[in-house]
């Protein structure tokens, strides 16, 4: 085919080949030619003005771009909203190109349009999603400046485009110490952390922030998305639950204390009774026996008060990052000789993948000591041959777990497990019942809980659950102090 023939063919076919709706408009804004795509999209065009054909209007658009192009001869690209054949609102991407005569005067305009209604709808949906999603979303650049924020964020933290995220979230003057966004900029990964911010109203806001890279194929990450969920209410509920648990423990403490006091009173009443009978009978031996009982029980009162005061006063937890398995091995070391002498197999089953954890080592040491010493006592009182006490460590659902299990049958199946959980003493005159009470108190200070299971003839199983999330906050508290 010769170039001349090609030109001729293109002249007639070009309008149809182009994948756009094409219309040619004259200076009176009349559509003088259009391709079949245009006709399919807008219907009959012959004898119509462009505003009639495109938008079904009776007069020219207020800000008529075609007229501007006729005037300045410049090409224009813009979004236009028109009506399709069914009268529905439709979005078009329009390109206006001037067609000039030989003397350079713009005589016609070629209007090329493309229906972008679907992508516009998607964009609108995305914007609604972005603005209304019930969490805070910001996009930050490498300077940690907020370049975009959603409605929820703006409502809570203020309209803050261009400000530093640490300034807006926390009113800080420099980047946060444990900044997850910095990690994302550094390694391109997704990072999550719990943070405490300040709203524009000056209230504290607890939130969990997840940072993820926003890349457009660049080698270096230019932007990071921060998505935060407000957990202030959840945190408050958590505090209420902890407070309720604390009050329940106080109730049990009082009940345990009342039991101890009643026993002492029984001894005092007994002493008084025996002294009084002895006096009546002039029985010196009885008087001496009664007096001895009185003395003993006054002494018990003193030590109970001392023990209780030291329990109530407690000690400040000293948090350190330690390997929980090391603690267990210390306990094993401490009790191995005693266990060996009694023929009890004291062993440890450790999860070696456990990471270092912020704990109060002295506190947890006391807890494990109490549990192991009770377990050994329970085994001592059992007649079995294969008695054992086992300390286990493991990770489960974001929790660090310590377990102390024994197969001593000294546990009274119906009662003693309750006694252990509710902290009464069963050690006759010896115990004050504060050992397990102290254990529970320490565990609660770590934000955890202690659970006991016991079955008839199968010994006892104590489980300390320490949620890692709460342990982390222990370390932060320590840092703040």
């Amino acid at each position, binding site marked *: 085919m010769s170039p001349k023939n090609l030109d001729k063919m293109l002249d007639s076919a070009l309008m149809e080949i182009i994948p756009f709706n094409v219309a040619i408009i004259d200076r009176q804004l009349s559509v003088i030619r259009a391709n079949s795509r245009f006709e399919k999209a807008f219907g009959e065009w012959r004898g119509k003005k462009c505003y009639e054909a495109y938008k079904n209007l009776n007069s020219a658009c207020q800000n008529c771009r075609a007229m501007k192009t006729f005037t300045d001869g410049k090409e224009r690209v813009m979004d236009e909203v028109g009506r399709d054949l069914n009268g529905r609102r439709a979005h078009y991407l329009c390109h206006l190109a001037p067609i000039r005569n030989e003397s350079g005067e713009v005589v016609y305009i070629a209007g090329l349009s493309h229906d972008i209604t679907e992508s516009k709808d998607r964009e609108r949906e995305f914007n609604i999603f972005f603005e209304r999603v019930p969490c805070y979303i910001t996009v930050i650049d490498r300077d940690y400046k907020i370049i975009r924020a959603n409605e929820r964020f703006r409502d809570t933290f203020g309209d803050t485009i261009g400000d530093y995220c640490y300034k807006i979230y926390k009113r800080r003057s420099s980047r946060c110490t444990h900044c997850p966004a910095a990690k994302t900029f550094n390694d391109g990964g997704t990072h999550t952390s719990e943070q405490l911010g300040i709203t524009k109203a000056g209230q504290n806001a607890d939130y969990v922030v997840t940072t993820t890279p926003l890349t457009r194929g660049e080698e270096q990450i230019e932007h990071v998305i921060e998505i935060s969920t407000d957990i202030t209410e959840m945190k408050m509920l958590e505090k209420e639950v902890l407070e309720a648990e604390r009050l329940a423990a106080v109730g049990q403490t009082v*009940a345990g204390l*009342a*039991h*101890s006091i*009643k*026993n002492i*009173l*029984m*001894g*005092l*009443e*007994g*002493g008084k*009774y*025996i002294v009084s*009978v002895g006096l009546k009978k002039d029985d010196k031996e*009885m008087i001496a*026996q009664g007096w001895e*009982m009185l003395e*003993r*029980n006054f002494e018990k009162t003193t030590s109970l008060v001392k023990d209780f005061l030291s329990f109530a006063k407690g000690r400040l937890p000293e948090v350190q990052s330690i390997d929980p398995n090391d603690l267990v091995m210390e306990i094993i070391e401490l009790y191995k000789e005693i266990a060996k002498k009694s023929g009890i197999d004291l062993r440890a089953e450790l999860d070696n993948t456990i990471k270092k954890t912020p704990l109060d080592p002295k506190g947890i040491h006391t807890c494990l000591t109490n549990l192991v010493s009770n377990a050994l006592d329970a085994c001592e*009182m059992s007649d079995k041959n294969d008695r054992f006490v086992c300390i286990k460590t493991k990770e489960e659902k974001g929790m660090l777990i310590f377990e102390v299990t024994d197969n001593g049958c*000294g546990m*009274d*199946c*119906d*009662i*003693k497990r*309750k*006694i252990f959980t*509710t902290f*009464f*003493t*069963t*050690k*006759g*005159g010896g115990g004050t019942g504060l050992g397990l009470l102290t254990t529970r108190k320490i565990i609660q200070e770590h934000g955890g809980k202690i659970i006991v299971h016991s079955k008839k003839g199968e010994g006892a199983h104590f489980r300390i659950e320490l949620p890692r999330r709460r342990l982390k906050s222990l370390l932060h508290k320590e840092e703040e102090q």
Partner: protein
Amino acid sequence: MIQKRNKILIIDDEPDAVNYLKAVLCENNIEGISAENSKIAWESLEKDKPDMICLDIMMPRESGISLYVRLREDRRFAEIPVIIISGVEPAGEFDIYKFIANKKIPPPEKYIEKPIRVENFIKAINEILEKEILKHK
């Protein structure tokens, strides 16, 4: 009212509670014998049946509640009247009545909280012993 010198077994791990109860019983012409835990108590019961048992709840190794259940389930001792004497509230966490509710065994004859009142204690013993006499007539 008490016809012959009765014998009561006191099961309690607190020596002062035992001394007190024994002294009160002695003053009322009742023989008091004691056992500091359930094992010793069982041995004593097998040797010589008492007329009544005073039983503590919070004891090491085996609690009074568990021992009470065993006593009631053993034909040899099921009929011996039992007074629970404990520092634990009867309706609290260690409610013996709840523990025995589905065990088809009768409740203890009496529940007395520590510290005891001597008059109430003796009154309860006399009432129970009188009932026993009537039962066996």
